[in-house]
């Protein structure tokens, strides 16, 4: 397999891998490293790539496992770093801040969800995979995925409503 062939396979879903990694690891840099690692692993096993039924689903599972390993690793436990993705200087207008604010709230709420629900929300509502694919990627059954999804969605809505109404009601 040549580099171009490999890139043709990988390119369509590399962003999805990155976003999934970022959902779990929060920091952009960590997510970039994880994505690189996952793709390089695929590249070094390129001879086996034809045997995989669905390279994309396989990579997503790989990413999930890799991120969990990262989170469980000693490094992550010794040192608690609160990752902030610092935006650079271009100060947005007050209005934009207000508009963006509630969008950021959603990000924060999702961050607080249990890992399983985080993954499901990411794969379904952001990447728009169907339930069967998600079930395969996460090694869960269909119903469990639906339940996790439903719980996550309800939690997000409830928390959003309460922050919206904070101090009003």
């Amino acid at each position, binding site marked *: 397999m040549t580099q171009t062939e*490999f890139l043709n396979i990988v390119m369509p879903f*590399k962003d999805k891998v990155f976003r999934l990694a970022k959902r779990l690891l929060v920091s952009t840099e960590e997510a970039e490293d994880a994505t690189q690692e996952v793709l390089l692993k695929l590249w070094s096993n390129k001879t086996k790539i034809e045997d995989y039924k669905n390279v994309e689903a396989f990579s997503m599972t790989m990413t999930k496992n890799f991120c969990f390993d990262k989170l469980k690793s000693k490094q992550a436990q010794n040192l608690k770093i609160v990752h902030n993705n610092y935006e650079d200087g271009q100060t947005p207008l007050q209005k934009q801040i207000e508009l963006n604010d509630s*969008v950021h709230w959603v990000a924060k709420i999702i961050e607080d969800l249990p890992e399983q629900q985080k993954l499901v929300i990411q794969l379904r*509502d952001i990447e728009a995979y169907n339930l069967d694919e998600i079930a395969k990627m996460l090694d869960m059954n269909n119903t469990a*995925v639906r339940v996790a999804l*439903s719980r996550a969605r309800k939690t997000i809505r409830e928390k959003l409503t309460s922050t919206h109404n904070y101090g009003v009601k």
Partner: protein
Amino acid sequence: MVLNNIEKLLEKYENGDTSLKEEQALKNYFSQETVAPHLEVYKPMFAYFSVSKQEQFTKDLPLKTKKVFTYRWIAVAAVAVLVVMVYFKKPAVSTYQEYAYGTYNNPEDAFNEVTKQLAMISNHFNKGVSTVNYLEEVNKGTGTLGYLNEIGNATSIIFKK
């Protein structure tokens, strides 16, 4: 899209029963400027989903592994060595017999030469042995040390008395 329909979809959505198509319809509805006021809560949620989907992986992939690189150059080096070897080996092939049987074609000549060499070796060997003859001197030395016994005798006589 009728508001009623949206509300129904939202309920289905929260139960996780919507299809991907229906979810797309919801996303489209909430990306509008104006949304029914009681559904305003959902707007940032769907906005966030659409925004998150735009994020991209920009770091480049160092796919050129070191392995590939070295193998290629090893192959090049091997070919070069082979070419050089073939080039230098060629004149040797014509004088192959000479190398195989030595420089003497006549056995008598060879015998004479060998005798000469062996004679030279034995000559040098004898020279070496003659130098070792000095070791005889050591024996002589130990012989003279025998006189020390006399001293021992003398002291024993003194102490007896």
